[in-house]
């Protein structure tokens, strides 16, 4: 079956199998930041934005994305660059495998809530699992970025 989606700002038409998952579609189109992790819809590694909302691409049929706009980290480099360094500065990226999923969800959080509390950050990122860092580093990095942003604005 043929579908049309907008992937990272570019309109594409694809011939897909009815049971193809969105993760496989975006990876076929070179978006290797999107990773397969738990296979149980728990880890958040495969997070992409569909019409601006974070979703698990490992659990969604590519066919349902027909007519929608999908963004992966490859298409959000500029937006992500702003704070990814702050996360790295905390030594959070030990193996780095979970990082693209984290960054995608952080982008979504910041768009929805530009000044989140620590509790709101932890709540929003609860669907992103990291088996290296224990989560404190991500929180510290994100907090450092928010503080930096505030100091720049004032």
């Amino acid at each position, binding site marked *: 079956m043929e579908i049309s989606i907008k992937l990272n700002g570019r309109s594409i038409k694809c011939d897909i199998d009815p049971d193809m998952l969105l993760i496989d579609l975006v990876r076929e189109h070179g978006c290797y930041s999107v990773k397969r992790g738990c296979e149980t819809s728990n880890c958040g590694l495969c997070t992409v934005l*569909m019409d601006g909302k974070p979703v698990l691409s490992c659990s969604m049929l590519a066919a349902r994305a027909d007519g929608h706009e999908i963004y992966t980290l490859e298409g959000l480099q500029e937006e992500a660059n702003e704070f990814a360094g702050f996360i790295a500065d905390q030594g959070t990226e030990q193996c780095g495998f979970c990082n693209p999923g984290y960054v995608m*969800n952080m982008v979504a959080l910041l768009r929805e809530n530009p000044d989140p509390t620590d509790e709101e950050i932890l709540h929003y990122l609860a*669907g992103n699992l990291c088996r290296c860092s224990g989560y404190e580093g991500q929180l510290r990095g994100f907090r450092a970025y928010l503080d930096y942003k505030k100091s720049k604005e004032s």
Partner: protein
Amino acid sequence: MITINQYVRAQSLEEAYELNQKRNNRIVGGMLWMKMQRGRVGTAIDMCDLGLDTIEETDEEFSIGAMATLRQLELHEGLNSYSDNAVRDAVKDIIGVQFRNLATVGGSIWGRFGFSDVLTVLLAMDSYVELYKGGIIPMEEFARMTYDNDILVRVIVKKVPAKVIYNAMRIQRTDFPVITCALSVVNGEYRSVIGARPGKAVVVRDEAGRLKGGINEESASAFARDVAMKVHTGSNIRGSAEYRTHLVEGLTLRNLMNMGGKC
């Protein structure tokens, strides 16, 4: 993993219903649970084009489309104001935001899953489901029904005078609950709803009139004991039947004491 031979976006409820009569065809909700299953699906029927992805509020009720997501439930101001945030409390620990942006109300309710936070909190309110052929029936009746080939169109929550409190025990945040417990007083009637027993949620009413004179430590303890005695619990990897029964009593008591300040 399941395999799917054909994918159809139904253009009407009738088309979805007709397709759903064939045994190996399946309605696709959020696909989160279906994805975990094995087998071959003939036609995956997607209702995403039918405009069922909204929550509408009138003076009398909330109408929640089957394709509305759990995230929409979490963020809906009217529904959360009406339920004292019990709806938000019930869904906020279901995996993560990305998951809740996909999981549908229809999928959660149709499955009548034992672990369902959503079914538990909705049973605590004056709620109904609308089935395409079966019409509007109380949620409690729907929860007891056997699976058939009808289609869940929407969930209705009547805006009757009510107070609702939701509590659940999880070993770890975002995991399946060990027990779910909602307490409500709907039109003056107290109900405690217990799910993840691990069976599907059941409603226990105050038939003995323990709370007739209001909520105090004595009446709350008596009702909590009643609930724990009436609810059948079982054991699984997350907890034993005895532990669950202990939690039922504890959480019901906690909900009652918290509600005491709200009545």
